[in-house]
Protein backbone atom coordinates (compact mmCIF):
# COMPACT_ATOMS: atom_id res chain seq x y z
CA UNK A 1 0.00 0.00 0.00
CA UNK A 2 1.29 3.41 -0.90
CA UNK A 3 1.51 5.68 2.07
CA UNK A 4 1.26 9.47 1.97
CA UNK A 5 4.51 10.80 0.67
CA UNK A 6 5.24 7.62 -1.28
CA UNK A 7 2.86 8.53 -4.06
CA UNK A 8 5.02 9.64 -6.97
CA UNK A 9 2.57 12.37 -7.94
CA UNK A 10 3.60 14.23 -4.81
CA UNK A 11 7.12 14.60 -6.18
CA UNK A 12 5.70 16.06 -9.35
CA UNK A 13 3.89 18.74 -7.42
CA UNK A 14 0.43 17.44 -8.15
CA UNK A 15 -2.18 19.28 -6.16
CA UNK A 16 -3.60 17.62 -3.11
CA UNK A 17 -6.93 16.78 -4.70
CA UNK A 18 -7.98 14.98 -7.83
CA UNK A 19 -11.40 15.11 -9.39
CA UNK A 20 -12.84 11.86 -10.62
CA UNK A 21 -13.98 13.44 -13.84
CA UNK A 22 -10.35 14.35 -14.57
CA UNK A 23 -9.58 10.65 -14.43
CA UNK A 24 -12.63 9.10 -16.10
CA UNK A 25 -12.10 8.56 -19.83
CA UNK A 26 -8.49 9.66 -19.43
CA UNK A 27 -5.96 8.11 -21.77
CA UNK A 28 -3.55 5.88 -19.87
CA UNK A 29 0.06 6.10 -20.94
CA UNK A 30 2.92 4.05 -19.59
CA UNK A 31 6.41 5.25 -18.76
CA UNK A 32 7.59 4.08 -22.17
CA UNK A 33 4.92 6.28 -23.82
CA UNK A 34 2.59 3.50 -24.88
CA UNK A 35 -1.12 4.15 -24.71
CA UNK A 36 -2.78 1.24 -22.95
CA UNK A 37 -6.44 2.24 -22.82
CA UNK A 38 -8.85 4.66 -21.27
CA UNK A 39 -10.20 4.73 -17.75
CA UNK A 40 -13.75 3.41 -17.80
CA UNK A 41 -14.36 3.61 -14.08
CA UNK A 42 -12.69 4.09 -10.72
CA UNK A 43 -13.43 1.54 -8.02
CA UNK A 44 -13.48 2.54 -4.39
CA UNK A 45 -13.80 0.52 -1.18
CA UNK A 46 -15.27 1.43 2.15
CA UNK A 47 -12.98 0.87 5.10
CA UNK A 48 -14.40 -0.35 8.42
CA UNK A 49 -14.06 3.19 9.79
CA UNK A 50 -16.38 4.49 7.05
CA UNK A 51 -13.67 6.07 4.94
CA UNK A 52 -14.07 5.47 1.23
CA UNK A 53 -10.87 5.11 -0.79
CA UNK A 54 -10.32 4.88 -4.52
CA UNK A 55 -8.33 1.71 -5.15
CA UNK A 56 -8.40 0.76 -8.82
CA UNK A 57 -8.78 2.13 -12.29
CA UNK A 58 -11.02 -0.11 -14.37
CA UNK A 59 -10.57 -0.53 -18.05
CA UNK A 60 -12.72 -2.45 -20.48
CA UNK A 61 -16.22 -2.90 -21.83
CA UNK A 62 -17.70 -4.20 -18.58
CA UNK A 63 -16.89 -1.08 -16.63
CA UNK A 64 -17.92 1.02 -19.60
CA UNK A 65 -21.30 -0.72 -19.83
CA UNK A 66 -21.87 0.19 -16.19
CA UNK A 67 -21.49 3.83 -17.13
CA UNK A 68 -24.41 3.51 -19.53
CA UNK A 69 -26.51 1.78 -16.91
CA UNK A 70 -25.42 -0.06 -13.77
CA UNK A 71 -27.97 -2.75 -14.69
CA UNK A 72 -25.92 -3.58 -17.78
CA UNK A 73 -22.87 -4.42 -15.68
CA UNK A 74 -23.86 -7.97 -14.60
CA UNK A 75 -25.26 -8.70 -18.05
CA UNK A 76 -22.07 -7.70 -19.85
CA UNK A 77 -20.00 -9.48 -17.19
CA UNK A 78 -21.96 -12.65 -17.87
CA UNK A 79 -21.38 -12.40 -21.62
CA UNK A 80 -17.74 -11.35 -21.57
CA UNK A 81 -16.80 -13.27 -18.41
CA UNK A 82 -14.22 -10.72 -17.38
CA UNK A 83 -11.97 -11.47 -20.34
CA UNK A 84 -11.61 -7.83 -21.29
CA UNK A 85 -11.80 -6.33 -17.82
CA UNK A 86 -8.55 -4.88 -16.53
CA UNK A 87 -7.71 -3.20 -13.29
CA UNK A 88 -4.80 -1.01 -12.38
CA UNK A 89 -4.18 0.14 -8.81
CA UNK A 90 -4.53 3.89 -8.38
CA UNK A 91 -1.11 3.89 -6.73
CA UNK A 92 0.30 3.29 -10.22
CA UNK A 93 -0.77 6.78 -11.28
CA UNK A 94 2.28 8.98 -11.64
CA UNK A 95 0.73 12.06 -13.16
CA UNK A 96 -2.73 13.29 -14.09
CA UNK A 97 -3.00 15.69 -16.96
CA UNK A 98 -4.32 15.49 -20.50
CA UNK A 99 -3.12 11.89 -20.25
CA UNK A 100 -2.79 9.80 -17.12
CA UNK A 101 0.77 8.61 -16.85
CA UNK A 102 1.48 5.33 -15.13
CA UNK A 103 4.62 4.46 -13.22
CA UNK A 104 5.32 1.22 -15.01
CA UNK A 105 6.29 0.12 -18.49
CA UNK A 106 3.76 -1.30 -20.93
CA UNK A 107 4.94 -4.83 -20.18
CA UNK A 108 3.97 -4.34 -16.55
CA UNK A 109 0.29 -4.07 -17.44
CA UNK A 110 -1.74 -6.71 -19.22
CA UNK A 111 -3.67 -4.14 -21.21
CA UNK A 112 -3.57 -3.11 -24.83
CA UNK A 113 -3.62 -6.73 -26.00
CA UNK A 114 -6.28 -5.98 -28.61
CA UNK A 115 -3.92 -3.55 -30.33
CA UNK A 116 -1.13 -6.08 -30.05
CA UNK A 117 -3.30 -8.76 -31.60
CA UNK A 118 -4.29 -6.51 -34.53
CA UNK A 119 -0.67 -5.54 -35.13
CA UNK A 120 0.59 -9.11 -34.85
CA UNK A 121 -2.06 -10.80 -36.96
CA UNK A 122 -3.22 -8.14 -39.41
CA UNK A 123 -0.88 -5.21 -39.75
CA UNK A 124 2.16 -7.42 -40.21
CA UNK A 125 0.77 -8.61 -43.56
CA UNK A 126 0.27 -5.13 -44.95
CA UNK A 127 3.05 -4.23 -47.41
CA UNK A 128 5.14 -1.32 -46.25
CA UNK A 129 4.74 -2.04 -42.58
CA UNK A 130 8.50 -1.80 -42.50
CA UNK A 131 9.27 -5.11 -40.82
CA UNK A 132 9.43 -8.71 -41.89
CA UNK A 133 6.25 -10.58 -41.12
CA UNK A 134 7.99 -12.59 -38.44
CA UNK A 135 9.25 -9.63 -36.44
CA UNK A 136 7.91 -9.34 -32.95
CA UNK A 137 5.42 -6.60 -32.37
CA UNK A 138 7.35 -4.87 -29.62
CA UNK A 139 10.20 -4.03 -31.98
CA UNK A 140 7.84 -2.14 -34.18
CA UNK A 141 7.17 0.54 -31.60
Amino acid at each position, binding site marked *: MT*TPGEWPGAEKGIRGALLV*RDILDGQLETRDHRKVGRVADVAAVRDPDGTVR*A*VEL*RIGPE*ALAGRISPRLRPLVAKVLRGRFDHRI*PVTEIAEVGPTIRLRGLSDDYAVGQAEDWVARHILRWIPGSGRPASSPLRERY
Partner: protein
Amino acid sequence: MATPTTTSRSGPPVEPELPSIALADLVGAHVLTPRGRRVGKVIDVEVRPLERFRVAALIVGRFAFIGRFALVRGTTSELENVTRPRIIPWSEVERFDGSRVVLREPRAGQARDEGA
Protein backbone atom coordinates in the same frame (compact mmCIF):
# COMPACT_ATOMS: atom_id res chain seq x y z
CA MET B 1 -17.21 -16.81 -14.11
CA ALA B 2 -13.67 -15.89 -14.99
CA THR B 3 -11.90 -13.61 -12.61
CA PRO B 4 -11.20 -10.20 -14.15
CA THR B 5 -7.58 -9.55 -14.86
CA THR B 6 -6.08 -7.57 -12.06
CA THR B 7 -3.03 -5.85 -13.34
CA SER B 8 -0.69 -4.75 -10.68
CA ARG B 9 3.03 -4.36 -10.87
CA SER B 10 3.22 -5.59 -7.35
CA GLY B 11 1.28 -8.72 -8.29
CA PRO B 12 -1.59 -9.45 -5.92
CA PRO B 13 -5.15 -8.28 -6.54
CA VAL B 14 -6.08 -5.00 -4.95
CA GLU B 15 -8.20 -5.71 -1.88
CA PRO B 16 -10.64 -7.97 -3.75
CA GLU B 17 -12.37 -9.04 -0.55
CA LEU B 18 -13.99 -5.65 0.00
CA PRO B 19 -17.17 -4.78 -1.91
CA SER B 20 -16.38 -1.96 -4.25
CA ILE B 21 -18.20 1.21 -5.19
CA ALA B 22 -18.04 2.41 -8.78
CA LEU B 23 -17.26 6.10 -8.56
CA ALA B 24 -18.76 6.58 -12.01
CA ASP B 25 -22.11 5.58 -10.46
CA LEU B 26 -21.63 8.26 -7.84
CA VAL B 27 -21.28 10.96 -10.49
CA GLY B 28 -24.81 11.89 -11.50
CA ALA B 29 -26.45 10.38 -8.41
CA HIS B 30 -29.18 12.35 -6.67
CA VAL B 31 -28.25 13.78 -3.30
CA LEU B 32 -31.04 13.77 -0.74
CA THR B 33 -31.41 14.98 2.81
CA PRO B 34 -32.52 12.41 5.42
CA ARG B 35 -36.06 13.75 4.94
CA GLY B 36 -35.91 13.02 1.22
CA ARG B 37 -35.51 16.56 -0.04
CA ARG B 38 -33.32 16.90 -3.11
CA VAL B 39 -30.10 18.81 -2.67
CA GLY B 40 -28.85 18.30 -6.21
CA LYS B 41 -26.80 15.86 -8.21
CA VAL B 42 -23.22 14.78 -7.79
CA ILE B 43 -21.25 16.45 -10.53
CA ASP B 44 -17.82 15.37 -9.37
CA VAL B 45 -15.98 13.55 -6.60
CA GLU B 46 -12.86 14.85 -4.89
CA VAL B 47 -10.14 12.31 -4.14
CA ARG B 48 -7.05 13.04 -2.03
CA PRO B 49 -4.08 11.06 -3.40
CA LEU B 50 -1.85 12.00 -0.51
CA GLU B 51 -4.35 10.59 1.96
CA ARG B 52 -4.41 7.05 0.50
CA PHE B 53 -6.74 8.21 -2.26
CA ARG B 54 -9.49 8.98 0.22
CA VAL B 55 -12.77 10.21 -1.21
CA ALA B 56 -12.92 13.57 0.52
CA ALA B 57 -15.98 15.33 -0.83
CA LEU B 58 -18.81 15.38 -3.31
CA ILE B 59 -19.28 18.36 -5.56
CA VAL B 60 -22.99 18.82 -5.84
CA GLY B 61 -25.04 21.13 -7.99
CA ARG B 62 -28.69 21.50 -8.86
CA PHE B 63 -28.22 23.00 -12.28
CA ALA B 64 -24.46 22.88 -12.38
CA PHE B 65 -24.42 21.81 -16.01
CA ILE B 66 -25.63 25.30 -16.94
CA GLY B 67 -22.49 26.76 -15.41
CA ARG B 68 -20.37 24.61 -17.68
CA PHE B 69 -21.70 26.46 -20.70
CA ALA B 70 -20.42 29.76 -19.33
CA LEU B 71 -23.77 31.37 -20.07
CA VAL B 72 -24.23 32.79 -16.61
CA ARG B 73 -20.61 33.65 -15.93
CA GLY B 74 -20.20 37.25 -14.91
CA THR B 75 -23.80 37.70 -14.01
CA THR B 76 -24.63 38.64 -10.45
CA SER B 77 -28.07 37.22 -10.66
CA GLU B 78 -29.56 34.58 -8.44
CA LEU B 79 -29.09 32.25 -11.38
CA GLU B 80 -25.38 32.22 -10.72
CA ASN B 81 -25.97 31.22 -7.11
CA VAL B 82 -28.24 28.42 -8.24
CA THR B 83 -25.68 27.06 -10.66
CA ARG B 84 -22.73 27.34 -8.28
CA PRO B 85 -21.71 23.87 -7.11
CA ARG B 86 -21.53 23.05 -3.42
CA ILE B 87 -18.90 20.92 -1.76
CA ILE B 88 -20.26 18.34 0.65
CA PRO B 89 -17.63 16.52 2.74
CA TRP B 90 -17.89 12.74 2.59
CA SER B 91 -18.27 12.75 6.38
CA GLU B 92 -21.77 14.16 5.83
CA VAL B 93 -22.80 11.20 3.69
CA GLU B 94 -24.96 8.65 5.46
CA ARG B 95 -25.19 6.13 2.64
CA PHE B 96 -24.97 5.57 -1.10
CA ASP B 97 -27.27 2.93 -2.53
CA GLY B 98 -26.00 2.92 -6.09
CA SER B 99 -28.18 5.72 -7.42
CA ARG B 100 -28.88 8.00 -4.45
CA VAL B 101 -26.69 9.63 -1.86
CA VAL B 102 -28.41 10.25 1.45
CA LEU B 103 -26.86 12.81 3.76
CA ARG B 104 -26.66 12.64 7.52
CA GLU B 105 -28.97 14.63 9.71
CA PRO B 106 -27.21 17.94 10.38
CA ARG B 107 -25.94 18.28 13.88
CA ALA B 108 -27.54 20.80 16.25
CA GLY B 109 -26.61 24.33 15.24
CA GLN B 110 -25.41 23.19 11.82
CA ALA B 111 -28.26 24.03 9.49
CA ARG B 112 -27.98 22.78 5.94
CA ASP B 113 -29.21 24.98 3.16
CA GLU B 114 -31.68 22.61 1.61
CA GLY B 115 -33.18 25.02 -0.80
CA ALA B 116 -30.05 25.60 -2.87
